[in-house]
């Protein structure tokens, strides 16, 4: 883990509002594992102030790629970077996916930019001759991650809300029938998707290894501010340090906690 300035060597818009930036970042590229992330400064001024966490998408030799969805001030600054610009990065951070050498058949489940860490994971798994199936969900076909960017050996399953591509419905609907085949499940995407997956795993395959990459708003990404904690069966855990990848059964899904009325001042106040 390092603080480094990476040169942008390429910036490609791979689908609407989603860019892949290729960075010259030898040390980070060599040490990164799928599921880890960078904490990226967006500009050199005071706004936006806080860095933005972005998964490592792929690495290749001295190059490292991130896939950025333009959703706000920080990400829109990043996607405007061009070849030659420098990007101030901290990372690789956190704990990535843990894949047991025994796992032969990997089922990957993604939604939105959650596909990013899964592609890197798929490439690593293929390299050691595992079989990979990647199921991806999106609102409509134009938001589906382009198949051309996924290794051919990967079985690519698509679900869209409106049925404009692949299966019509939730990507999690595709999971049950593939659970017998899968030795392990890895997911990254919207909270609701991962929570649904957690229910499926609990009901249908309570002992099958399954991991999820979680998200939370971050301050430091170094484990000191405790800003990114989520509830787990072991108490609060830091997404930036104990995560972002967790065992799916460790997570206390926020839905209940977020019910109306349960929000309000905590006993500990600020700080």
């Amino acid at each position, binding site marked *: 883990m390092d603080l480094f300035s990476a040169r942008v060597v390429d910036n490609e818009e791979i689908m609407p509002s989603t860019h892949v930036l290729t960075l010259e970042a030898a040390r980070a590229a060599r040490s990164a594992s799928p599921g880890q992330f960078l904490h990226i400064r967006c500009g050199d001024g005071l706004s936006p102030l806080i860095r933005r966490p972005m998964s490592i998408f792929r690495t290749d030799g001295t190059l490292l790629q991130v896939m950025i969805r333009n959703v706000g001030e920080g990400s829109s600054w990043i996607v405007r970077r061009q070849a030659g610009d420098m990007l101030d990065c901290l990372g690789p951070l956190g704990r990535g996916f843990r894949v047991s050498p025994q796992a032969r058949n990997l089922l990957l489940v993604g939604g939105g930019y959650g596909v990013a860490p899964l592609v890197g994971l798929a490439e690593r798994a293929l390299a050691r001759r595992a079989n990979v199936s990647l199921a991806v969900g999106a609102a409509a076909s134009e938001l589906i991650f382009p198949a051309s960017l996924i290794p051919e050996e990967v079985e690519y399953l698509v679900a869209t809300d409106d049925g404009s591509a692949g299966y019509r419905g939730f990507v999690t609907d595709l999971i049950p029938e593939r659970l017998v085949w899968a030795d392990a499940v890895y997911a990254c995407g919207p909270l609701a998707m991962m929570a649904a997956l957690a229910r499926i795993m609990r009901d249908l395959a309570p002992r099958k290894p399954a991991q999820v990459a979680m998200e939370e708003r971050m301050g430091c990404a*170094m484990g000191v501010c405790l*800003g990114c904690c989520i509830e787990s069966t072991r108490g609060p855990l830091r997404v930036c340090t104990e995560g972002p990848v967790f065992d799916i059964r460790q997570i206390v899904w926020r839905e209940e906690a977020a019910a109306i009325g349960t929000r309000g001042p905590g006993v500990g106040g600020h700080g």
Partner: protein
Amino acid sequence: MRLPPPDPQPDLRVEIGRNAKLPLTLRNPVMVASGTFGYGTEYARLIDVQRLGAIVSKGITLHPRRGNRGPRVVETPAGMLNAIGLQNVGIHKLVSDKAPVWAQWDVPVIVNIAGDSIEEFAYMADQLEGVPGISGIELNISCPNVWEGGRVVAEDAETTAAITEAVRLRTGLPLLVKISPQVADIVSVARAAEDGGADAVSLINTFVGMRIDTRTARPVLANVTGGLSGPAIFPLTLWLVYLVSQHVGVPVVGVGGVASLNDALELMLAGASAVQVGTATFVDPGTSLRILDGLREAIRSRGCASVGDLTGLAHPSRRAARAAR
């Protein structure tokens, strides 16, 4: 031919602990603020933490705390809000697990403590007494539940004096009292800390703020409100340091929005004897050490011999004295 002797290094030392049995001489005035540097170990992989003037550890309570539900942080213009809720390992674990590590370090660690009552503060001070690796105590009397229906409940002059006295009786360690900016009369609170036996006052803790997610129409923070830190509050910190340092005799430690050498210099000119860097470390982990390096040069180029010569130079009294010379 003999070369002339090198320019003498400016003296960066700062003494804290006029009233303490075990006064603390910081090698330099650049500390890192409580809650923004964990237990000191985390950033050690990234920067040379041993060069810091001191590390103030995350606020600790008697019993371990789980903290608030998330989201706990949210960004604001040139700042951030936090509502961590004092998640911490509890004082016993701090003494058994963290202090032994610190005992091996060059950099002094000051433990920030938050009690629920005067007795709890005193008990916690007792637990820290004589523990190798602990070089000072910072009382966090400003943090929990500052606002209740808009009234400032935690921190008035009497409470501050009572807590400070109780802790002073139990500890020989240098004692810093950290003050909230949102009190009715900050000068009297700072004076109460001094009268109660504080060796220094740390100014300031965060301001109460909030953000709302306009898509969901709900507060972003699960806790509704959070404490505002970062560059946005710097001009407010500076004024309070300028104000309070003219009314207390103990050193003032300036904290709140420091992000650059220039900020640190402004605070010292305003009357701070030392500074703490908080949120800026998240933005750029090298901030504190860069300030330290720049400070050395800034002192030299001003023809000062020691960092203390800068303290309070912007005060009218100091200006008049300089003019008279």
